[in-house]
């Protein structure tokens, strides 16, 4: 009987936690969601690239969700975010193409790297869009000065220095123990804003100035989270409500303080919602 109750509780916790895809940074294996055919994903990725190019964005922050919205908690729209950088791309015949390259934090696949560890890797817009499970992606365009600072950090190694390989799906942006893809974006932005790689200083600054989104995880989820999914770490939330970095929180922070030129959502037909 006791074993049955334990099994039922763990099952309940799994059901509660399954929708928490706040910042599911993805693994190394590229999987297309089949929301878009390869041809549609290619065309849509070019639409986004051209939109960014027309706006003169050398660095943009792009978000997608690999799960449909009915499988995400309220208020969570996207599960992965990465920097898209206007960058030279060399083909195997030596030609240089002009376009965007995704710079991502991914968690391990559980085989070559534990799922509780992350790594930095580049990809291309076609793959990024192909993994979307819904019509829209979201974009934040930093101000030109912030773009310049981020790009400089990528070139001189400070970007890589802010990567913490200890991964949690629901990492707290106010604690230095774990990091996910969205917190990494925020840490890089903070490093660029305050021009520091002092991680303790960055966390202190974010505690003072950044408003994270609160996740609703039930009691079972809080109790059994680490048992349900090894990528769910709760220690960095210190027994308090779970706050994490989302597209909406990052967009609000950057727009409210003048760090972003604009943010918008985009579908194959074009921009659907825009704020500046």
């Amino acid at each position, binding site marked *: 009987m006791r074993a049955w109750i334990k099994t039922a509780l763990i099952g309940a916790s799994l059901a509660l936690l399954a929708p928490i895809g706040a910042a599911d940074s993805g693994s190394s294996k590229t999987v297309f969601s*089949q929301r878009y055919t390869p041809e549609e994903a290619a065309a849509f*990725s070019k639409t986004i690239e051209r939109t960014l190019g027309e706006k003169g964005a050398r660095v943009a922050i792009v978000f997608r*969700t690999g*799960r449909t919205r009915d499988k995400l908690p309220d208020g969570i729209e996207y599960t992965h975010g990465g920097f898209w950088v206007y960058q030279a791309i060399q083909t195997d015949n030596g030609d240089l193409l002009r376009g965007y390259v995704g710079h991502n934090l991914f968690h391990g696949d559980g085989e070559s790297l534990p799922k509780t560890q992350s790594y930095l890797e580049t990809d291309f817009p076609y*793959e990024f869009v192909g993994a979307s499970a819904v019509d829209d992606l979201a974009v934040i365009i930093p101000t*030109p000065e912030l773009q310049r600072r981020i790009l400089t950090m990528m*070139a001189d190694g400070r970007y890589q220095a802010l990567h913490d390989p200890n991964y949690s799906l629901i990492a707290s942006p106010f604690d230095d123990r774990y990091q996910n893809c969205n917190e990494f974006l925020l840490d890089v932005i903070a490093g660029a804003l305050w021009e520091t790689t002092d991680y303790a200083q960055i966390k202190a600054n974010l505690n003072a100035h950044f408003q994270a989104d609160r996740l609703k995880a039930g009691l079972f989820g809080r109790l059994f989270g680490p048992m349900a999914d090894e990528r769910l770490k709760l220690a960095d939330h210190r027994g308090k409500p779970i706050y994490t970095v989302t597209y909406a929180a990052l967009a609000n922070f950057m727009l409210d303080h003048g760090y972003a030129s604009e943010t918008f959502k985009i579908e194959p037909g074009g921009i659907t919602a825009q704020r500046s």
Partner: protein
Amino acid sequence: MADSFQNMSDATLDSADASARLAASGTQVALGAVAVPLAGLGALAEAGGETATEISADLWDVANTPLKVDDAVVIAQPLPEMTPSSPTHPVHKADPK
């Protein structure tokens, strides 16, 4: 690069299959393309049609002006096949006597 919850979904397509289908569709693709490391900032500037060799104020004077994006859809390189063509370690044979 998939969101890992997708790994539990039935409706997924491997990247290599998706790339093969795209290439077969007649879409202009760039196979085997790699991002030029950002440490090579000259290449970045060159790609933007400028002559700057480093990120400088001059380069950023043109920020927010349109940037050209090429038509080819860039597809990541597949994992290389590692087929040993020769023994990994030298074979030491006894000297013929």
